[in-house]
């Protein structure tokens, strides 16, 4: 090795694979990644164990005997009161709630963002500021008046009502996202479209919307995550035939008497989280890109 020190530097810098810098960076990242993965690992491992094993062993040890029983039970057998069909029913309800809610809330919020960014009218900023303050109001505070509002609209207990609620409470953050995104698009594009004879809606549908794919991805992920995981609105503003999956999850996890079936709980938990997780894993790249594309510009 000694002679290498005397070599006249030329050509590419010899790149050491294991430099102290890399050890620190990758070391830290790997440790942190393990920390983040640990709970998921525990969930999966536990859900694959039989109940006796769960009670005996340590939560980190891999299952001695893998069983899918808890998954089956969580999906199709766990009881809520008299209905013993597990999460299955709630799953489709969640889909029925999430799809229109995500779609409509994003549509409305993107129109808001577009109107705010490109068609400023007197007072627009004021309404927007109010909306932003609204983002901070805990939902619990709003339950009662919302019940009254829905009752007066005749939408209480209906899917439409729930979609409306999700649209309203998703509006602040989504509007902020879209407003910032559209504001970051070149103003000249908008002007060119106006000169080309397009009106408010024409520009929105034919110019802005096609350009907002990155931010839509962000919005979709945020909304799918938020709405799919929602429990409070789903249970308060609808009736049992529309109860989302999280209600069943709550019923399985929150049953206070008797033995806790941890393995079933974990399986149910994973099953409930799987849709947002899949969406997230599939489009995570776009998520980061979309956020970079405008969401973070204050």
């Amino acid at each position, binding site marked *: 090795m000694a002679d290498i020190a005397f070599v006249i530097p030329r050509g590419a810098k010899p790149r050491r694979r294991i430099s102290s810098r890399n050890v620190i960076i990758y070391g830290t990242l790997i440790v942190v990644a393990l920390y983040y993965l640990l709970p998921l690992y525990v969930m999966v491992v536990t859900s694959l164990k039989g109940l006796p094993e769960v009670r005996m062993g340590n939560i*980190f040890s891999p299952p001695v005997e893998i069983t899918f029983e808890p998954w089956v039970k969580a999906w199709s057998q766990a009881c809520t009161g008299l209905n013993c069909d597990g999460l299955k029913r709630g799953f489709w309800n969640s889909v029925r709630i999430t799809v229109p809610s995500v779609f409509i809330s994003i549509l409305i919020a993107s129109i808001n963002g577009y109107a705010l960014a490109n068609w400023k009218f007197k007072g627009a900023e004021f309404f927007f500021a109010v909306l932003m303050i609204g*983002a901070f109001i805990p939902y619990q505070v*709003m*339950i009662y008046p919302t019940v009254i509002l829905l009752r007066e609209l005749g939408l209480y207990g209906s899917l439409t009502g729930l979609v409306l609620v999700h649209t309203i409470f998703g509006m602040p953050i989504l509007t902020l996202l879209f407003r910032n995104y559209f504001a970051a698009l070149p103003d000249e594009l908008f002007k060119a479209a106006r000169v080309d004879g397009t009106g408010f*809606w024409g520009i929105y549908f034919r110019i802005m919307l096609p350009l907002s794919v990155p931010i839509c991805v962000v919005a979709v992920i945020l909304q799918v995550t938020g709405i799919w995981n929602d*429990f409070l609105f789903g249970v308060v503003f609808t009736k049992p035939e529309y109860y989302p999956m999280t209600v069943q999850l709550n019923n399985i996890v929150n049953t206070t008497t008797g033995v806790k079936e941890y393995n079933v709980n974990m399986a149910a*938990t994973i099953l409930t989280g799987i849709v947002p997780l899949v969406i*997230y894993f599939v489009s995570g790249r776009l998520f980061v890109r979309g956020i970079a594309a405008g969401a973070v510009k204050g």
Partner: protein
Amino acid sequence: MARSNTQERPSRLFRNLSAKIAAVPMILTAMVVFVGFSVWTVVHSFTKSGLLPRLNFVGTLQYERLWNSDKWLISIQNLVIFGGCMLVLSFVIGFVLACLLDQKIRYEGVFRTILLYPFALSFVVTGVVWQWMLNPDFGVQSIVRGIGWESFAFDPLNNGKIVMFGVVIAALWQGSGFVMVLLLAGLRGIDDEIWKATRVDGVPAWKTYLFVIVPMLRPVFVTTLVIVTAGIVKVYDLVVAQTDGGPGIASEVPAKYVYDQMFLNQNLGQGFAASTMMLLTVAVIIIPWAYLEFGGKKRG
């Protein structure tokens, strides 16, 4: 102002009519839901409403009771602890991770995905999992003891003094990845030439991050701060799922206080009074910010 060939200036109201029509949902949401409901809440906080809202006014009785309630005071204190820890830690962790990921490393996507996935889970899931992880009998404590460190004690969920830190651990697990992504996006937006300039100036990387990059990320920090703070003020599900306010009432938080008063105690008036206090706090913090951010300058 005699104009010969004058065309009437169209009424202000009808300029940009489509835009105004399109903004109706937003205006309604802002005015009816956020302003209207808040006013409604404030009004009813002066009543003795129980299970149902009624206008049987009792003056400031609810507020007196609120500020005499240990539970409320503990809630506030907990929110301060939780919020302080969350803000500091999520930003520190998020920023350090963002910086690490920004080093042009390999498998960046994999790491990023791992750090962010908890964000896709609900607070209920997070609460349940961490309740488990922190369980002294089979969670982290027993594992550490199992590998030989017998005296190791980490049992936050059963210790009222440190229970909030247990909640913070779970909240960080779920939320710091999102902070990381926001900040990473901000870092990516920084002009490459700034980096080159600091390298030529011989500034060490950590100094660059601290003294050059962080100040440049101010707008991103502000946006992130808003999102994180909004989450902190609203914290509810996590506490309910993880500790249900326990042990005792050691991990109560304001949102839970509101909920419990309204639906467990069937004392809406009290719940509304607590809500009003929360609204007030939010307004005090947010309105100046919103004014600076959106009122002062013209374009975002």
